[in-house]
């Protein structure tokens, strides 16, 4: 039975590698702009995915695809921070370099689809990359703060605070300016 279980785990990770390695490399390369580091990011991401394999029910589901993209992005962002530290750079990450990450939401299309006003769109546009991943896992995929903390390798408290911060900003705009939802 144990052997069967191990075979299932191995086949799941093999399937993930076969299906998503190319996509992960593309994402990593878009973020880090370095071929060798992109490969490192993909390898580290696979180690993290393997560690949290129990969180994947269906390799082909939209949630799994988001989960894999999130881990790859997270590892890439950590790598940028690490590289900046090694080079002694203390500047903050330039958010502009993430503007062309593929597979991301077009906020204007999203606004028109649901009829949100500009104030809501402004709050959503200001959400940084890490918070965006956390919000997507929390509100989009329905993961608990504890699960997100394991995926993002951060404290549960930090996850909760980041969600709350974004929610409070949005709540304030809606209560003051009346965000419109169709």
């Amino acid at each position, binding site marked *: 039975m144990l052997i069967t279980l191990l075979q299932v785990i191995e086949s799941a990770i093999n399937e993930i590698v076969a299906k998503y390695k190319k996509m992960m490399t593309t994402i990593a390369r878009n973020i880090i702009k370095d071929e060798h580091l992109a490969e490192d990011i993909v390898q580290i991401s696979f*180690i993290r995915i393997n560690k949290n394999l129990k969180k994947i029910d269906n390799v082909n589901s939209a949630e799994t695809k*988001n989960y894999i993209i999130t881990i790859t992005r997270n590892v890439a962002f950590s790598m940028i921070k690490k590289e900046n530290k090694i080079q002694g750079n203390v500047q903050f990450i330039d958010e502009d370099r993430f503007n062309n990450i593929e*597979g991301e939401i077009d906020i204007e299309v999203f606004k028109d689809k649901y009829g949100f006003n500009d104030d809501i769109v402004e709050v959503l546009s200001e959400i940084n990359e890490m918070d965006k991943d956390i919000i997507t896992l929390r509100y*989009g*995929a329905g993961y608990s703060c504890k699960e997100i903390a394991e995926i993002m390798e951060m404290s549960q408290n930090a996850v909760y605070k980041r969600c709350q911060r974004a929610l409070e900003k949005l709540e304030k705009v809606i*209560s003051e300016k009346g965000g419109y939802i169709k």
Partner: protein
Amino acid sequence: MSSKRKAKKVMKLYGKEIIKQRAAFADSFSEEYVPGFRKIRYKRMFKRIALTMLILIMTLSLIVATANAVGIKIFNFSFFETSTHTELINENEKTSNGNTDCYYKPTVIPDNYSFITTDEIEGAEINYIYENDKKQNLVITESYNTDLTTMIDNEKCKISTEVIGENEIKIYAYENGRSVYLLQKGKTFIMIDGTLSETEFKEIITGLKIKK
């Protein structure tokens, strides 16, 4: 509807929309999205295999002819160096059964590093992974009885050889502070990769004890 509930609803829509976009992005890498792609891919794959085989045969004949001049043989591994990377090929005699007695357990690890996990392919390879408070990784890879071919970056790095204890070590020291130490204990090939000082590397190497 209260503003709090509205905010949560917006967040849910936002989160679900991102998942939808990301899933579509992931699907764009899938073969089924391009009709006839699979056929073309097989053709390409066949061409690639044929080309790789040809290159391999040519390279092998060249290596056989000039092995001592081109390849540097250290331990039981052959190092083939290019301007961008070093390729290591295991020339250990292979046996049918893995012998995990030949693994070494790291007994000395720098204080600021904590153990994260081990990743083992039974009878072939084991990775010990550590991390410090700056989220820097220290990875100790041990390979035994395997078809090992490892690539190591040569760029922006100083390559040297040193003897620590009874071990001959090949050192790749990168400009960014990271180093890779390669050594062989018995038939086990050991690679230590991390951002550590020379002393710390030496302590790790001398602290490697046969795993019982």
